């Protein structure tokens, strides 16, 4: 039996993540928590998030979670979702500029409001909301059983700028190409919401539950 700590810092619909994990791993011990000891003791950690990155980083400060988060990022299977991906980079444009955790090199930017579809010239709306395709650009245990170019559910106005680097695990196009998934050692993080992405999303969560954190 594995234990999963889902980091609760008071933002967004974190209960959806709990419910989805409980669904794919009925015997797992799933805890929504901001307690440092719980996070230390858990076998694996999920860092979900919705809303604004500024509030997310402030909440980490408020609950004094920076240190324990860095420990978890170093040693156990770790899944970031949405803001939980963005927070891993150096900085975000959101909130007039926000310093993030700096685990992965790169910037989080806002989608320009002037993007149009190449075929018909129709404006691309922001937030990027709905089901879009993810191109898996490296094989990874978390992609197991998931088709190339599978659709996942996205909802975000800021994106991780795509640069060619070893940590990019998946990309998505929406007017521009952005990093939809990142992987390094024991860390995997996604911009989309696996907990809301039906079969493919549940498969990814199941893969995470079964992952030993190694490649």
């Amino acid at each position, binding site marked *: 039996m594995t234990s999963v700590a889902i980091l609760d810092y008071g933002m967004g*619909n974190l209960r959806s993540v709990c419910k989805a994990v*409980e669904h794919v791993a009925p015997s797992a011990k799933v805890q929504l928590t901001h307690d440092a000891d719980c996070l230390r003791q858990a076998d694996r950690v999920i860092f979900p998030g919705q*809303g604004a990155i500024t509030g997310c980083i402030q909440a980490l400060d408020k609950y004094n979670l920076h240190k324990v988060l860095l420990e978890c990022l170093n040693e156990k299977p770790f899944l970031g979702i949405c803001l939980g991906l963005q927070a891993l980079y150096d900085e975000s444009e959101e909130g007039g500029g926000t310093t993030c955790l700096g685990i992965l090199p790169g910037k989080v930017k806002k989608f320009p409001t002037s993007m149009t579809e190449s075929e018909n010239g129709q404006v691309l*709306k922001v*937030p990027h909301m709905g089901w*879009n395709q993810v191109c898996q650009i490296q094989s990874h245990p978390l992609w197991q059983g998931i088709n190339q170019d599978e*659709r996942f559910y996205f*909802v975000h106005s800021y994106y991780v700028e795509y640069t060619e680097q070893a940590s990019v695990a998946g990309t998505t196009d929406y007017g521009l190409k952005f990093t939809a998934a990142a992987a390094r050692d024991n860390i995997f993080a996604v911009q989309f919401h696996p907990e809301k992405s039906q079969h*493919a999303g549940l498969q990814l969560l199941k893969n995470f539950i079964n992952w030993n954190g190694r490649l």
Partner: protein
Amino acid sequence: MGLAKRIIPCLDVDNGRVVKGVQFVEIRDAGDPVEVARRYDEQGADEITFLDITASSDDRETMVHVVEQVASQVFIPLTVGGGIRKVEDIRRMLNAGADKVAINTAAVFNPEFVKEAADHFGSQCIVVAIDAKQVSDGDNPRWEIFTHGGRKPTGIDAIEWARKMADYGAGEILLTSMDRDGTKDGFDIKLTRSVSDAVNIPVIASGGVGSLEHLAAGVTEGHADAVLAASIFHFGEFTVAQAKALMAKMGIEIRNMAS
């Protein structure tokens, strides 16, 4: 390749049961919300919207339970509308497992509420529902916002209102034509396109769907990002999968179900 246009079945829920009225008059029972939601999920619905048409606050509690039950079995986005008036109402629905809430009347009476809600929970979960009725004809038709199920005019121009709500932090607009709602004559295409082209946030077309072609027209002619329908799915006339098959044939980007 690209973002798929969404098909969203809508469940009008009254005291824990799915119902469907024609222009808010005749109410027909269409089943248990959890069962109905699960069926749509299996058919490939991209999201599900629940509109709580219950009047009393006691029955609102029932809605929270409905959302809780659905959210533990159906893993696609869920939107809940109806009676969302305070930050506390939003928190309750999100905690129950909703991903977005639709704010309608409360936004009209207190636009600042939309700002407050978006600041608090993020624009991604704030949908502003707009009920619009055409008030003038001709080359430049005009639509106005109506409240109370389409009975009370407000004098507010629908397109200006949509722009304002986008500025105030709405993440999406759920646009219902009160003229078409329940008629099965198809979306008000002019209204849909006017609003969709006026704002930079996604627009869901609603009201009047009677055929699968109507759904497709909402996207191709109405420029909607998502299309919402209730009765054509409830009574087994059509499935979501059939709607998607037709849209795919017309070259509309949709999400296929994994085989």
